[in-house]
């Protein structure tokens, strides 16, 4: 199967699932009309893509199981959890250096300098200039 056929199949199934669950997810029957019409369209379009997809289509170079990609997503999730628990600035002071290391930087002096300067700039813009508060 090509990547468009996989996408088409997944979205057709999503359309079908939405069509089935919509009546249980709305308080008024009129609220469900538009989502149900759209879910039928999604199903039909998904099937159309599966049936007409070209075998010559370009393949994607990046794998979703690439460790770099997964670690990066985990790092962002960790940062969000940290922001909600210990606050923004301490979280950034940890996640920014980790992000730089992940992106291939190995000069620790530069990493620390950049992290401190960036955090300082963010504080100046958000707290001082805009008068807003980060969590």
């Amino acid at each position, binding site marked *: 199967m090509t990547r468009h056929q996989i996408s088409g199949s997944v979205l057709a199934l999503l359309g079908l699932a939405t069509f089935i669950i919509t009546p249980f997810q709305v308080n008024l029957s009129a609220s469900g009309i538009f989502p149900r019409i759209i879910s039928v369209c999604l199903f039909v379009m998904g099937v159309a893509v599966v049936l007409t997809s070209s075998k010559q289509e370009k393949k994607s170079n990046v794998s979703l199981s690439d460790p770099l990609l997964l670690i990066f997503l985990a790092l962002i999730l960790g940062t969000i959890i940290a922001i909600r628990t210990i606050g*923004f600035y301490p979280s*950034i002071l940890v996640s920014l250096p980790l992000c730089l290391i992940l992106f291939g930087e190995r000069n620790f002096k530069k990493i620390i300098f950049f992290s401190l300067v960036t955090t300082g700039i963010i504080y100046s813009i958000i707290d001082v200039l805009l008068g807003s508060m980060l969590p």
Partner: protein
Amino acid sequence: MTALLDNAMIGMGLLLQWEVLFSAAGGVFVGLMMGAIPGLSDIIAICLLVPFTFYLNPIAGIAMLMGLSKGANFGGSIPAILFNIPGTPQAVITAFDGYPLAKQGKAGKALKVALFSSCIADSVSDCVLFFFAAPVAMAAIMIGPAEHAAVVIFALTLISITAETGPLVGLLSMVLGLLLSCIGADPLSGAPRLTFGSDELAGGMDIVPLALGFFVISEIIWQVCLEKKEGINLAALRIDELEEKKALEENYEEDHSLSFSEFKKCVPAIGRGTMIGSAIGALPGIGTTVASYLSYMATKRASKNPERFGKGAIEGIAAAEAGNNAVNGPNLIPLITLGIPGNLAAALILGAFTMQGLTPGPMFMEQQAPLLYALFIVLFISNFFALGFGIVCIRYMRKMVSLPKNYIYAAVVIFALIGSYIVRNNTFDLYYTLGFSVIGLLCRKGGIPMIPLLISYILGSSLELKIRQTMDLNAGDLTVFLTEPISGAFLAASVLVIVYTVYRKIRMQKTGSV
């Protein structure tokens, strides 16, 4: 005409605040810098700045975003001309002749042609917006909900079928965006739906966390993985090496000046590019890259020496830059008069309008005329900021190309998280951003174009509202969409466009010319 001048005069009064002009100038400058950094497009720049416009008054906030878009448009041509590395997608065409000229030691000449062409075309396109927005808005007031819904469907169809991955996949993406727009409150009754009992989902998903996840974080992750896979060191691009390489080319003779006779040669190309770009800009979805390409090809065909194109013809640079910049002004006409964004940048600007409590649409021009004319004027003034910054900064902007990307990417990710939070001061929005980063990655992997998805997500609620208003007015009868002449014509045009594009694609597949 008198009303137009009156509104323009009141609009001028609104501009006499330092905040507005400073924001526009700041937007142009930041756009110029971000456009000059390969990998950071105008879209990423707008996504990152949209949340901060919340802290400015409406004119200043929108002026900053529009200035940013203008700055990034020219900024993208700097690395394209100097190193054949387009900073923005539309700058690819500029590189056709810009880079060969730079290799001959005439980079300064090429950059000046690009700058003057951009600013002239952009100024003319802003005049088109200034004079044509009001008549289109007057026509838009007269249309009812059925016609409005049909126009939205037509616009979404155009945006979807022009997706580079193919028309059917584009339409699939558009339908997915419409489905996502159903999550949250029903636009008519306000009752929650498809929320699975979650209070956080009941309020709907804000456009800013969605765009930041979709277009910024997923783009950065994708770029990093792609560059790692292709063995590119994120911190390794050295402009000194690239400059030395260029100096070894044949015919290398430094000449960075642009004479008046050379500029005169570019005028027809600028005029042609401006007309093509303005016409394309008024249509939703077609975009700057197509305008740039069509303008370039038209100038090449009109030239007495077409063989010079691709080898450093200054008219080629002028045509490409005029074509892509002339899209900017007319592109705002459907946004302001109908609430329909013509491209992704306009969709994000629509998000900024909404954040400021303003709703573009048929009545917008009537209710907010002075504000809109103030914006049109500041758009025009921004071209002078772009010209000024361009002239002063051209020689320094080349340094932006060599900034280590790993630092830029890390900072962009952190600013995206901040932007996601500060719009509603809600940490849960950070999860939306992460969720949409994952969806963005899945879309990239699955070859699903993301522009139709985002634009249909933005327009989904208004489309549903208009459809249901029409049904309420006609006792639930849907055939009214076909029997009303205007809505029937737009729906028929949508079907014809889809059938023709799909037929053409299938025929191309059969003949093997994909």
